C-alpha cells in the first residue's frame, strides 16, 4: 500500500492544520478535565464542594470507616468474581464455536450474542426484573440457586451481558490467528482437547485475559441492571454510590467516586494493554 506516500495529502496545511490540532487537544481536555477536577476536590478539606480549603485525606479515611460502603464493596467483589469466571468460560466457548466452526443456526446465535452489548441498560434491567419475578418459581428448582438472595440474581444478570463482551474480545483475537497451527496439531495426532489446551488457548490467552478484565470492569461499574435486581441490604457499591450521588454533591461521594474511577481506569488500561499486545502482530501483516 502506498499509504506512507499518500499520507501527506491527508494532512491539511496551514491554518486548518492548527485548527485540527487545537481541536483534538480540546477534546482530550474535555475528556479528562472533569475527572481531574473530581480528583482534586476529593482532597478538599471542606464540607462545601466548590471552594478549595486545603489538602486532607480525611474523606478517604471516612470512606474506610463507613460500614455501608465496606459491605457494598464486598457484594460488588463477590458478584464480580463469580460473574466474570462464568462469563469468561461461556464467552470464550461461544467465540470459538463461532470463529472456528460452521454450523446450523450460527448466524442467529451471532446476532443474539451482539444484542446485550447494544441494548440500552434500562431495557436489560427491566428484562431481568420481569424475568426474576415470573420465573422465580421454576428457577428455584435448579439446585444451588436461591433467588431470595439478591446475590445470585446479580451474578446471573451480569453473566448475561458479560458473555457478549468477553466473546467480542476473544473473537477479535481469534480472527487474527491463523487456524493452521491448530490444524498442524491435529495432523500430529493431537485430539481436540489437546490441540485446544496446547495450541489455541496459549495463543488466545491475551484475548481471554483482556476480556476477563473488561468483564470485571463492566460488572463493577454496572448501575442500572444491578439496581433493578439487587435485594435490600445486598446492594453492590455502584448502586449504593448511585443512591448517594442522586442526593447531591458531597466530599465523601467524591472520594468514593475517585476510588471507583481509579479502579475502573486501571482495569481498562490493563485490559487494553494485554489484549492489544497482538496489535503489533497485526500491523506486520
Amino acid at each position, binding site marked *: 500500500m502506498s499509504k506512507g506516500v499518500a499520507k501527506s495529502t491527508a494532512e491539511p496545511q496551514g491554518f486548518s492544520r492548527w485548527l485540527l490540532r487545537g481541536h483534538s487537544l480540546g477534546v482530550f481536555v474535555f475528556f479528562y478535565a472533569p475527572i481531574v477536577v473530581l480528583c482534586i476536590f476529593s482532597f478538599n478539606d471542606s464540607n462545601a464542594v466548590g471552594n478549595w480549603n486545603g489538602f486532607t485525606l480525611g474523606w478517604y479515611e471516612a470512606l474506610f470507616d463507613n460500614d455501608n460502603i465496606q459491605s457494598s464493596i464486598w457484594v460488588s467483589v463477590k458478584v464480580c468474581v463469580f460473574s466474570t469466571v462464568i462469563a469468561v468460560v461461556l464467552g470464550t466457548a461461544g467465540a470459538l464455536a463461532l470463529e472456528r466452526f460452521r454450523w446450523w443456526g450460527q448466524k442467529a446465535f451471532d446476532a443474539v450474542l451482539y444484542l446485550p452489548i447494544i441494548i440500552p441498560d434500562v431495557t436489560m434491567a427491566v428484562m431481568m426484573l420481569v424475568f426474576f419475578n415470573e420465573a422465580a418459581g421454576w428457577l428455584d428448582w435448579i439446585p444451588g440457586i436461591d433467588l431470595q438472595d439478591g446475590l445470585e440474581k446479580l451474578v446471573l444478570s451480569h453473566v448475561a451481558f458479560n458473555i457478549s463482551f468477553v466473546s467480542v474480545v476473544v473473537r477479535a483475537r481469534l480472527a487474527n490467528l491463523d487456524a493452521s497451527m491448530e490444524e498442524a496439531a491435529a495432523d500430529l*495426532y493431537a485430539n481436540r482437547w489437546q490441540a485446544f489446551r496446547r495450541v489455541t488457548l496459549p495463543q488466545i490467552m491475551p484475548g481471554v485475559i483482556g476480556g476477563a478484565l473488561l468483564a470485571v470492569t463492566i460488572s463493577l461499574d454496572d448501575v442500572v441492571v444491578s439496581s433493578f435486581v439487587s435485594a435490600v441490604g445486598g446492594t453492590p457499591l455502584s448502586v449504593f454510590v448511585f443512591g448517594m450521588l442522586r442526593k447531591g454533591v458531597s466530599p465523601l461521594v467524591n472520594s468514593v467516586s475517585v476510588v471507583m474511577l481509579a479502579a475502573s481506569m486501571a482495569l481498562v488500561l490493563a485490559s487494553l494493554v494485554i489484549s492489544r499486545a497482538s496489535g503489533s502482530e497485526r500491523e506486520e501483516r
Partner: protein
Amino acid sequence: MAVDAPTRSPGDGPPVLEGTSEVATPGLEREAERAKARQGFLLGLPTIVYLLLFFVIPLGFVVAYSFATRTRSGRTELRDFNLDAYARLGDDIVMTVAWRSLWMAVVATLICLVLAYPLAYYISTRSPMVRNLMLVGVMIPFWSNFLIRTYAWRVLLDSDGLVTQAFEFIGLGDGRILFTSNAVILGLVYGYLPFMVLPLYAAIERIDWSLVEGARDLYASGWSAFRRVVWPLSRPGVIAGSILVFVPSFGAYVTPAILGGNKEGLLGSYIVLQFLSARNGPVGSAVSVVVLAVMLVATLVYFRSGGKNL
C-alpha cells in the same frame, strides 16, 4: 486451512477433520464436515442455553408484559392480553418524554459527530505510536465508569462549582445549567463521545489515501477532496458512531437522573418510574419495547449500510 497435506494417502492415519482436501472422497468429507459442525454446535451449546434462559426468555417476558393486564393492586398478570399499554403511549406525558428523548438524542448525536470527526481524522493521520497512545486515551473513558464520569460534571456544574464560577467570572451571566436540558445534553455528549470517535477512526483509518491524492492531482481543492472522497468513504463510521450514541441516549436513565434533576427525564427514566414507582408493568414494558424497536431499526440500518461489526 492451507496446511491440509495433499500428499497424504488414504489409510495414512485418521482422516483430517479440517479443510477441504481434494483427495478425500466426497462421502468422507461430508461426514467430517458434519462431525465438525456438530462439535461446533456442542461447544457453543452451554452459551446458547445460557443466553436463551437469561436473555431471550427475559426479552420475551417484557414483550408479553406489554400486552398483559395490570390488576388494581399494581400487579401485572399474564392473562387477557390487550393493547391498553400501547394505547397509553399516545398520552401527553409519554409523548412529551418521547419527543424530548428524541430531540436530546439527536442533538447529542450531532454534537458528538461534530466533535469526534476532526479528532478521529487527526488520530488516523498520526504515526502508529502516537495513534495508539491517542486511541488508548479515547478508550479509557470509553470503558471506564460511566456513572462517576457523569457525576464529575455534577461537581463542575453545581451552584458553587467551577464552571458556574467561571461563567460568572468571565461575565457570561448565569452559568447555572444544572438540572436543565442543556446539562443533560452535555452529560450525554460527554458520556458517549468515545462511542463516536472509535468507529469513525476505524472508518477513516481504512481509507486509501492515494484516492485523495488522485483527487488533488485532478485539481480538487482540499475541501472538495474531503467532501467528495473522504466523507463518502467514512460514512460507515459516521453511521455506526451515530447509532452507538443515539441508541443509549434515547433510552438514557443515569445521565438525566444525575444532571437533569427530576424534570428532564428521558424514556429510560420513564421506564424506571413505571416499574419502580408507578408499579405499572405493562406501560413500562410497552415503552421498553418501543426503545428496543428503535434500537433494532438502527442496527438494521447499520448492517444494511455495509457495517459488519460494532
